[in-house]
């Protein structure tokens, strides 16, 4: 049978962000996949080098809308390590509370998106309605529904009052009840299980070999969680379980995420109860002394890594962001090949892709020769015009409006 080429992306209703997955189909089965990224590259790492640290907090926060607190905290932890600042305990607790609330909001968002990819719009509407509880809570504590801006170098900017703590506990009770509803749904609804089970398998060895992290790896039985392995902020003082599952497919990832919702509720209750008194931040210098640091954070999608190098001035010398989706993407072709076309959207959605986080500049070294190619702006533009003429048959020079 001859192969049909189906382009999923860059524009496709299945994808929330542009990325290009070119599938080679035989009938309804996928024979090969070709992944091309880079549509979301915004030059954030370079932009960070031209702004002082205090402005960089807000820039790094806007790497992603869903895991904004993760990126901001990871960056600030790296800077604080270089400057040898000790964040007060209350500040660390508040950071963890916001981090766990963000995890809840991200997993509920994922549940809705997965429902939508499967054609199950009811689940989409219900889970996003419950997510409003968390969004309103975050707006009350931090001042904004996304991109919270609660971190500053040396601690946090806003405090949690007594009434706000009570409201957090009440809202978290509501969320726990709703999560139990979703667990029941994920284990009982036949059509849902029929679409999720056996799809996108990634065995334990493969997960370790491809370097998957977060719920994608934990669903295959790999027990890795930065909050337990390398505790930061207040996580060394709370007790919680690392959720793993044996299914090693999309159903396993669903179960891991929904159970992590329950764990987050448990963690938030402990954090609020143990919230220590004291200042919420220490004064940070404007010039950070020379040094470099790596900081890791357990984002809702996996392990988020930030590297910062300072040289004693007000602006960082180099900032590198490695988002968890990059680690999970290497396993995508393995999961899609051999499966059905109908499963491709849900498999892509199951690793919870966030291409905005992922697109950075990577320079590939060609094999052993160690050669690198660098193009300037004109060269890049001409290269893209040639590529489209050769591979897609579109001659941009013929389009009047672009001249």
């Amino acid at each position, binding site marked *: 049978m001859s192969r*049909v*080429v*189906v*382009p999923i992306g860059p524009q*496709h*209703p*299945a994808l929330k962000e542009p990325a290009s997955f070119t599938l080679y189909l035989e009938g*309804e089965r996928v024979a090969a996949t070709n992944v091309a990224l880079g549509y979301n590259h915004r030059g954030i790492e370079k932009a960070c080098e031209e702004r002082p640290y205090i402005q960089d907090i807000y820039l790094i926060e806007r790497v992603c809308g869903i895991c904004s607190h993760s990126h901001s905290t990871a960056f600030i932890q790296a800077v604080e390590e270089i400057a040898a600042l000790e964040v007060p305990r209350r500040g660390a607790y508040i950071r963890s509370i916001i981090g766990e609330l963000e995890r809840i909001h991200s997993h509920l968002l994922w549940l809705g998106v997965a*429902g*939508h*990819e*499967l*054609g*199950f*719009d*009811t*689940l989409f*509407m*219900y889970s996003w*309605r419950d997510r409003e509880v968390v969004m309103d809570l975050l707006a009350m504590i931090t001042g904004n529904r996304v991109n919270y801006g609660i971190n500053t170098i040396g601690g946090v900017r806003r405090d949690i009052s007594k009434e706000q703590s009570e409201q957090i506990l009440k809202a978290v009770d509501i969320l726990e009840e709703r999560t139990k509803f979703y667990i029941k749904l994920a284990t009982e*609804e036949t*059509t*849902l299980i*029929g*679409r999720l089970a056996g799809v996108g398998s990634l065995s334990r060895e493969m997960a370790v070999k491809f370097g998957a992290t977060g719920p994608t790896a934990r669903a295959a039985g790999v027990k890795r969680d930065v909050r337990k392995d390398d505790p930061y902020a207040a996580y060394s003082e709370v007790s919680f379980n690392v959720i793993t599952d044996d299914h090693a497919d999309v159903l396993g990832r669903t179960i891991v995420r929904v159970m992590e919702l329950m764990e987050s509720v448990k963690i938030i209750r402990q954090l609020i109860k143990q919230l220590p008194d004291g200042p919420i931040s220490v004064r940070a210098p404007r010039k950070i002394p020379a040094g470099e640091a790596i900081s890791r954070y357990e984002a809702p999608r996996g392990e988020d890594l930030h590297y910062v190098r300072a040289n004693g001035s007000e602006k960082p010398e180099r900032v590198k962001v490695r988002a968890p989706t990059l680690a999970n993407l290497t396993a995508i072709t393995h999961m899609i090949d051999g499966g*059905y*076309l*109908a*499963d*491709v*959207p849900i498999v892509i959605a199951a690793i919870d892709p966030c291409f905005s986080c992922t697109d950075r500049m990577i320079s590939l070294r060609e094999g052993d020769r160690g050669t690198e190619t660098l193009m300037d702006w004109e060269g890049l533009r001409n290269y893209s015009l040639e590529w489209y003429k050769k591979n897609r048959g579109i001659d941009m020079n013929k389009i009047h409006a672009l001249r």
Partner: protein
Amino acid sequence: MSEVLVDLLKILVFPGFIFLSLYSLFVEYADRKLYARFQNRVGPPWFQPFADFVKLLGKETIIPHEADVKMFRAIPLFSLAAVCTAFLYIPVWGVKSLFPFNGDAIVVLYLLTIPTLTFFLAGWHSSSLFACLGSVRTLTQLFAYEVPLFMAVLAPTLLAGNTGNWSVSGISAFYGSHPLLLLVNIPAFIVALVAIQGKLERVPFDIPEAETEIVAGAFTEYSGKLLAMFRMSIDIEMVVVASLLAAVFLPFYPAGGPVLGFVIYIVKTLAIVFLLSAVRATMARLRLEQMVAFCWRILTPIAIFQIVLNLILKEVIKI
């Protein structure tokens, strides 16, 4: 002469084309509003389907370069014509439809297959990748739900036998005079309800038009007036199918004249639409091979069982 004029009026206005179009827009509103309320949302206002139709009529019709222009333009008309014609043989305000004749039950079923074939042709002649995938899926789905649907509608027809004349009006009259026999047909009713979701291409069987996988399936390249006609024909198909099920499986005809009969008809069709919306709101979309397996392994045996039961019953009761 005046008879011909009255007939023409009946075909074009009531209960023909104009009534059918307006009622189908109302049924689409009811379906979307129910779907929204099941999901805890507000839903569209009552004029939304009409506004969508008018908006589509005003948009530019873009035909892809490699598509077959004549077929591309003609296919929506065929679809609309087939569903409207099928409505002529389904009773609306009583037990008699507009032009009943012996054997029109079979004709109605086959007329209802034509829209599905037009969806296939629409996708095929679009020469676009997603449209081809969608049209092939439409045909595969047709092989899955067609047999259970035909058998489920065939079962009460068999029971009605010669009294029913194999005509939808005759079947309605037969069950109207023997209302208790409707309880015998309940398995067939359930099979028909499930198979109808496949014919109308709604969740859980909306595989040919899976938005997140193949953009819009067979309708990907359609826009403007042609898309408006397709959507209108899908809405009318929903009304026709609901009316067919109401006529064959739900025969309550209290004697009260045509007005009461008409009201009962509206209530029956809306009840079926309610059930269809509820199914749409509670399930996820199945994969193609899961759907084929489900239809052939579960629906078809129940339909066969119903047919056997009805044949035995017919001999036993001897009516």
